[in-house]
């Protein structure tokens, strides 16, 4: 019998779960021998309130390993997360939503109440609609990363996380050793050719393709930042390539947007990126919509609604 494991998704898109399934052929022994799944809504039918739905309190079975994906957006997520913490000996936050807020934390940058009201007043919505409030979990004041609410033992970011790293993490835990996870930035793992300073004083929007020879590997292509594209490689944790090989987006010849969150756990991608651009002689004011540099790491109070300018006396 394998080591018991429970999986839960909070405010997630299920991309992390698909990444888990993308482990591929090793998945079969992983979920049938190495691990013994006791709770995982995507894959199996264990229910919160008993199998016949008669219970009143939410129950998740005891497990050695707990995996949570998604950020904490509403009361139900909070209840589920606390229950997972209570029942799992080792709790893993999987994916950037769980570790840094992820895309849904973009909501932290604006007035949530006003936004929700507007969502129920779009062109195609019947007039007079109100925000649903019956039997649906009420939202929290903002989107939280898991470690803001409970103690998290291990983190593996990524949007989505790399399947090989997920497998490495789980197998390492079962074998009782430290997992081998990358600690470098995307830039450090990127083979694109760097020639020195950028040729331009400004960054451009990604409305034209980068310059490259399709027949050549990425190592023949000039660094995208040096080509004048905003690429967040310097301020983003590596790992999207599984530790070796070309970073995922770069291999599609598209600049990085920071989906693994900051290199250091508490790093600030926006601040570091601006600092980096400024120190390379690039005008940081040329970045359109700077705040979206925090699109993957807006929890931990990083993204807040804009304050109105105080009128000058």
């Amino acid at each position, binding site marked *: 019998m394998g080591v018991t494991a429970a999986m839960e998704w909070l405010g997630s898109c299920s991309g992390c779960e698909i990444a888990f399934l993308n482990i591929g052929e090793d998945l079969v022994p992983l979920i049938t021998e190495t691990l013994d799944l006791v709770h995982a809504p995507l894959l199996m039918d264990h229910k919160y309130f008993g199998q016949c739905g008669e219970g009143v309190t939410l129950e998740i079975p005891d497990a050695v390993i707990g995996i949570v994906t998604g950020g904490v957006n509403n009361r139900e997520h909070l209840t589920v997360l606390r229950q997972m913490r209570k029942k799992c000996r080792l709790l893993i936050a999987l994916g950037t939503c769980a570790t840094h807020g992820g895309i849904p934390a973009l909501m932290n*940058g604006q007035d949530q109440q006003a936004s929700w009201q507007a969502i129920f007043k779009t062109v195609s919505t019947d007039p007079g609609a109100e925000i649903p409030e019956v039997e649906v979990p009420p939202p929290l004041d903002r989107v939280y990363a898991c470690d803001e609410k409970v103690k998290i033992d291990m983190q593996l970011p990524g949007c989505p996380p790399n399947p090989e790293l997920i497998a490495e993490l789980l197998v390492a835990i079962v074998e009782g050793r430290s997992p081998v996870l990358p600690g470098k930035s995307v830039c450090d793992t990127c083979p694109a050719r760097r020639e020195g300073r950028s040729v331009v004083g400004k960054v451009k929007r990604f409305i034209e393709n980068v310059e490259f020879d399709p027949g050549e590997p990425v190592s023949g292509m000039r660094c995208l930042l040096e080509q004048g594209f905003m690429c967040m490689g310097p301020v983003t944790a590596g790992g999207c390539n599984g530790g070796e090989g070309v970073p995922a987006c770069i291999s599609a010849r598209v600049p990085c947007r920071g989906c693994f969150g900051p290199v250091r756990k508490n790093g*600030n991608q*926006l*601040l*570091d990126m*601006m*600092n980096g651009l*400024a120190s390379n002689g690039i005008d*940081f*004011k040329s970045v359109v919509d*700077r*705040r979206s540099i925090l699109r993957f790491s807006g929890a*931990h*109070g*990083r*993204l*807040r*609604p*804009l*304050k109105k*300018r*105080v009128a000058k006396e």
Partner: protein
Amino acid sequence: MDFEPKIIVFCCNWCSYAAADLAGINRMQYPHNVWIIRLMCSGMVHPEFIMDALSQGADGVMVLGCHLGECHYRDGNYRALDRSDMVVELLEDFGYEQERFHLAWISSQEADKFVEVVSGMVNRIKKLGPAGG
């Protein structure tokens, strides 16, 4: 209850910290809302220090250095000046009013200016209200 702000003040060892010290020796009065952190140079204040202070409960942050041209390390305060433009610009991105940051130059003898600058900051932040609110 009246709002009592918490202001973090980064002072350089050679000028502004000495000025604060002198203000104390002279028994000059200044608001108790000020928390001083001594660094060797105003040029050492990474923007992250400022954002971290604000995100962890400070209501305002000041960087006080030597007058331009008088830096103990020749150009540390020029770096602080360059950076302050960016900090002011970025404060709004992080959801803070620009007024929550202030940069000033104070020599080791200007105890009165130190008192004036920090008192002014405390008053401004009192009007602005808490950073987290």
